C-alpha cells in the first residue's frame, strides 16, 4: 500500500513507481517504501508470436502442494489433502448408492470440509461423519432420504449416526428444518407400485397425513410410521389391497406401530367419515393428541384406585378390632416364657395396652422409624402358631403385626446376649428377606459390633467425617460377621471362579516372563513420557542428542540437518506431543501444534535474546500451523510457546543468527522440496525441482 503522507515532512505528494517498485516523497525526497510487492499479470512471448500469461491456474480447493510439471500424484501430498480426497471418495460412493445428485454431493463435501476445520472428525469414524454430512444435505435440501437408509447401507446403528448428525448440525450451526412426513409419501408410493393410479393414491395419502397432523398424531412420532398408515388407508380407498407386511417392508416400521397408528386415526373424528365424505370435506375440529387422551384415562384409573384404597382401609380397621380381641385372648393362654424373657414379659404387660389402642397400620411405619435393632423371639412366634394349630408359614401378616406391637416395648433392651435377632426395617422385608443376614444365628454379632463401635469411636477418626445424624447401629447392619464372611467368601469364589482363574493365569505368565527376562512393563495407557531436558554445550550437540532421542518426522532428512552448521532458533523437527495445555488440549493435534519444544541448550533463556529473534522463534510454528490447518488456533501457540521456551540460541552475532534462521525457516517450510533437493527419495520421485525454492 502506498503511504499517503510522508513521515518526514508531512507532505502528501508521494510518487509510487510500480516499475522500480518504490515510493518517494516529492517534498523532501525521502524514500518511503522500497521493493513494493507488485501484483500484476505479466506476459511472455511464446513461439509463433503469441503471448501467454505467466502463471498457473490453481484449484480453488487450495491444494497444499500445487501440481507442477507433469502433475505427479501423491508427491508427498500432505495428510490433510489425503483426508479430503478419501472423504470425497466416500461421499461419492455413498451418494451414488442412495441416488443423490451431484449438487448434493458437492454440498456434502463442503460440509465435510467445514467439519474438518472445526475438528469434528476427531474421534469419530470417517464413515459416520461422511454419512452425517450427507444426511445434513438431505435435510437442508428436503430430499426423501431417511437416516435409516444410511444406517442400512453402512450397517451402523442409526442412533450412532444420529448422534454424529446432531453434533455436526449443532457445531456447524446448520438448522435443519423438521422432517415433514409429506416428503416421504411419493417415495414410498413409488415403491408400492400403484401403477397408473400412483398420483391419486399419493394425493389421498397426502391429505390423510395432513389430517393426521392437524389431529396432533405426528408430534413425537417417527414420520415414516404415519406415512405407512396413510398409505395403507389410501391404498384401500382406491381398491388396492396392500397388506401390512408389504407396507412394513417399504416403510421400515414395526407392525405394531402401524396398527397403533391406524387405531389412533380411527379414533379421530375424520376416521369415522366415509371415503366420499373425507374426500369432499375437511373437518375443522381438531383432536387432542392421543397421548393426552391416554393420560386422561390413566388419571381416571388412578382416582378409582384411590377410592378403592379408602374402602379397603375402612375394612381393615374393622378386622384389626377383631384382632385386638383375639390377641387379648392369646395373652391369657400363652405358655410362660422362661429365663431371660421373663423380664421382658413384665414390661410388655405395661407397654402393650398403650400400643394396642393405636392404629395397626401406623405401627409398621413406627417400627421402621424406630431403631432397627428390635428383638423378636422366635419362641414366641412358634408358641402362637402352635396355639392356633398352624405352622409358622401360615401366620398371617396381621398376626405378625400384632406380635410386633409388643416388641416395641422390648426395644430398649439390646445389650443382652440370648438370641437377639436383627430385623429389617419393615415386616415385608423379613418375609421376603435375603438369605445372608437373616436366619443365621448371630449370637456374637451384636456384642462384637458394639465392642467394635467403642473401639472405633476411640480410634483416630478421619478429620472430616461428620457423624451427626448417622446411626451407627444401623450402619453395623451393613457389615457381616466372621461366620458370614466365610460363607460369603466361599460363595463369591465359586461364582467368580472363571475370573479368578484368568487372573491367576495372567500372573503366572507375568512371573514366567520375568524369569526369562522378557517381561515388558506394559502399563495400560500411562501418561506420555516426558523427556528430561537435553543439556548440551552447543546447539549441534543438542540437536544430535534430541535426534537420538526421537525420530520425529519422516519428511526431514536428519543427516542433512546434522550437517548444517547453524543454530536454529527452534527445534527443526516437527514437534511431538507436548504436555497438554488445558484449553488447547482438545484442539491440538499430535503434530506440531504447541510451542517449539526446543531443549537445545539451556544457556540463555529466550528473554535475553534480542527482540528480533522472538518473532522468528515463535513465528515458526505459526507458519506451520497456517500451512497445515485452518487457522483457527493461531493465537494459541504463541502465548503457549513463549513461556515454555527456556532454551535457545546463544553465542554468535545476532545478525548471523537471523540470517541463518531465515534459511532454516525456509528449509523447513518447504521441507518437501528440501528433501527433493537433497536427494532423499522416499516418494520415488527423482526429479529435481529448483523452481523458486
Amino acid at each position: 500500500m502506498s503511504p499517503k503522507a510522508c513521515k518526514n515532512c508531512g507532505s502528501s505528494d508521494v510518487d509510487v513507481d510500480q516499475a522500480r517498485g518504490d515510493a518517494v516523497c516529492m517534498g523532501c525526497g525521502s524514500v518511503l517504501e522500497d521493493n513494493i510487492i507488485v501484483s500484476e499479470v505479466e506476459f511472455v512471448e511464446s513461439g509463433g508470436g503469441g503471448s501467454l500469461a505467466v502463471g498457473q491456474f490453481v484449484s480453488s480447493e487450495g491444494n497444499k502442494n500445487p501440481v507442477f510439471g507433469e502433475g505427479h500424484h501423491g508427491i508427498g501430498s500432505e495428510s490433510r489433502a489425503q483426508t479430503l480426497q478419501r472423504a470425497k471418495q466416500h461421499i461419492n460412493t455413498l451418494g451414488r448408492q442412495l441416488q443423490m445428485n451431484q449438487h448434493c454431493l458437492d454440498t456434502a463435501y463442503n460440509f465435510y470440509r467445514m467439519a474438518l476445520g472445526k475438528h469434528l472428525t476427531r474421534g469419530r469414524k470417517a464413515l459416520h461423519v461422511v454419512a452425517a454430512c450427507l444426511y445434513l444435505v438431505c435435510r437442508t435440501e428436503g430430499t426423501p432420504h431417511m437416516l435409516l437408509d444410511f444406517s442400512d447401507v453402512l450397517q451402523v446403528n442409526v442412533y450412532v449416526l444420529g448422534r454424529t448428525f446432531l453434533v455436526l448440525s449443532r457445531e456447524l450451526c446448520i438448522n435443519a428444518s423438521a422432517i415433514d412426513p409429506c416428503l416421504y409419501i411419493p417415495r414410498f408410493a413409488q415403491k408400492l407400485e400403484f401403477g397408473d393410479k400412483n398420483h391419486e393414491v399419493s394425493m389421498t395419502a397426502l391429505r390423510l397425513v395432513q389430517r393426521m397432523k392437524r389431529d396432533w398424531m405426528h408430534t413425537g412420532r417417527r414420520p415414516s410410521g404415519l406415512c405407512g398408515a396413510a398409505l395403507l388407508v389410501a391404498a384401500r380407498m382406491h381398491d388396492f389391497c396392500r397388506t401390512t407386511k408389504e407396507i412394513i417392508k417399504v416403510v421400515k416400521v414395526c407392525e405394531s406401530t402401524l396398527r397403533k397408528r391406524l387405531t389412533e386415526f380411527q379414533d379421530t373424528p375424520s376416521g369415522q367419515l366415509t371415503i366420499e365424505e373425507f374426500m369432499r370435506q375437511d373437518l375443522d375440529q381438531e383432536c387432542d393428541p392421543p397421548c393426552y387422551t391416554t393420560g386422561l384415562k390413566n388419571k381416571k384409573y388412578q382416582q378409582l384406585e384411590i377410592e378403592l384404597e379408602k374402602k379397603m382401609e375402612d375394612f381393615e380397621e374393622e378386622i384389626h378390632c377383631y384382632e385386638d380381641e383375639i390377641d387379648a385372648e392369646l395373652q391369657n393362654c400363652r405358655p410362660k416364657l422362661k429365663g431371660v424373657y421373663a423380664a421382658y414379659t413384665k414390661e410388655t404387660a405395661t407397654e402393650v395396652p398403650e400400643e394396642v389402642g393405636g392404629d395397626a397400620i401406623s405401627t409398621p411405619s413406627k417400627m421402621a422409624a424406630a431403631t432397627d435393632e428390635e428383638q423378636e423371639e422366635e419362641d414366641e412366634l412358634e408358641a402362637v402358631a402352635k396355639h392356633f394349630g398352624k405352622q409358622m408359614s401360615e401366620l398371617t401378616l396381621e398376626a405378625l403385626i400384632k406380635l410386633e406391637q409388643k416388641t416395641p416395648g422390648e426395644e430398649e433392651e439390646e445389650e443382652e446376649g440370648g438370641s437377639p435377632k436383627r430385623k429389617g426395617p419393615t415386616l415385608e422385608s423379613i418375609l421376603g428377606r435375603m438369605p445372608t443376614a437373616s436366619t443365621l444365628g448371630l449370637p456374637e454379632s451384636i456384642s462384637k459390633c458394639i465392642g467394635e463401635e467403642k473401639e472405633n469411636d476411640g480410634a483416630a477418626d478421619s478429620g472430616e467425617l461428620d457423624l451427626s445424624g448417622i446411626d451407627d447401629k444401623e450402619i453395623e447392619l451393613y457389615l457381616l460377621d466372621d461366620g458370614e464372611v466365610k460363607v460369603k467368601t466361599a460363595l463369591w469364589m465359586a461364582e467368580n471362579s472363571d475370573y479368578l482363574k484368568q487372573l491367576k493365569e495372567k500372573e503366572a505368565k507375568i512371573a514366567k516372563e520375568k524369569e526369562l527376562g522378557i517381561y515388558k512393563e506394559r502399563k495400560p495407557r500411562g501418561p506420555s513420557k516426558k523427556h528430561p531436558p537435553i543439556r548440551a554445550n552447543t546447539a549441534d550437540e543438542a540437536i544430535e542428542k534430541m535426534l537420538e532421542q526421537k525420530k520425529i518426522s519422516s519428511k526431514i532428512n536428519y543427516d542433512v540437518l546434522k550437517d548444517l552448521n547453524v543454530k536454529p532458533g527452534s527445534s527443526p523437527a516437527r514437534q511431538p506431543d507436548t504436555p497438554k495445555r488445558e484449553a488447547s488440549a482438545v484442539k491440538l493435534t499430535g503434530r506440531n501444534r504447541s510451542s517449539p519444544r526446543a531443549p537445545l541448550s539451556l544457556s540463555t533463556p529466550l528473554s535475553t535474546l534480542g527482540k528480533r529473534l522472538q518473532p522468528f522463534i515463535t513465528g515458526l510454528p505459526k507458519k506451520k500451523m497456517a500451512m497445515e490447518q485452518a487457522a483457527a488456533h493461531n493465537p494459541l501457540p504463541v502465548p503457549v510457546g513463549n513461556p515454555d521456551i527456556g532454551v535457545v540460541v546463544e553465542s554468535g552475532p545476532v545478525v548471523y543468527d537471523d540470517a541463518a534462521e531465515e534459511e532454516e525457516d525456509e528449509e523447513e517450510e518447504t521441507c518437501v522440496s528440501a528433501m527433493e533437493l537433497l536427494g532423499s527419495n522416499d516418494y520415488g520421485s527423482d526429479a529435481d525441482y529448483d523452481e523458486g525454492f
Partner: protein
Amino acid sequence: MDSSNDDALDIIITNVVATFRTRCHLNLRTIALEGTNVIYKPEVGKVLMKLRKPKITASIWSSGKIICTGATSEDDAKVGARRLARCLQKLGFKVRFSAFKVVNVLAVCSMPFSIHLVDFTKNNRPIASYEPELHPAATYRIKHLKATIQVFSTGSLTVTGPNVQNVATAVEQVYPLLFECRKPLREKRKVN
C-alpha cells in the same frame, strides 16, 4: 400469569448423583466379602453398594473415589454419602470424607398443556433440537446454566442440571417459551 403458574408447577426430583473421595486406597475384595448388599464387579474394578435408608446405590472404586446415585434430594445424597463413609470406616479403612460434590440432578415436571414441538423448535433454533426419527422429545440446552431439558409433546419435561437451583431456574426459563407453543385444549373427548 407466568409466575403464578410456576408456583403451581411441581418439580419432582427423581435422582441426584454425587461424588466424593475417601482419600485412602480401598480394598475392594474386603468390602465385597464383608459387606451386605454389595455387588463386586472385578472386571470393571468396582463395587456396587446399596443403602436402604436414603435409597442409594454407590459405585466404589479402589482409588477411593465413590459415586452415589439414587438419592431424591441433595441433603439425602449427603447423608447417604456420609453413611457410606461410616460403613467403610467400620470395615477398617482410614476413611476421610472429602470433596463431596453433587454432580447431577434429574427432575421431572409436567405442564398442564400439550406442546407443539415443531413450532417450539422453530422458534428456538439452535438451542432446541428435535429429531423425531431418533427421539420423541425435543432437547433444549441452556448453556449458561448447563442444564438440558427434554420436552415431550404431552407436556412433560425432564430436566437435568448440576444442582437443584439450576434445575428450577431452567424450568422457569423455558416455561414462557413452552407456553407460546402450547396446544389449546379442546373439549374432552370420550375415552374409548
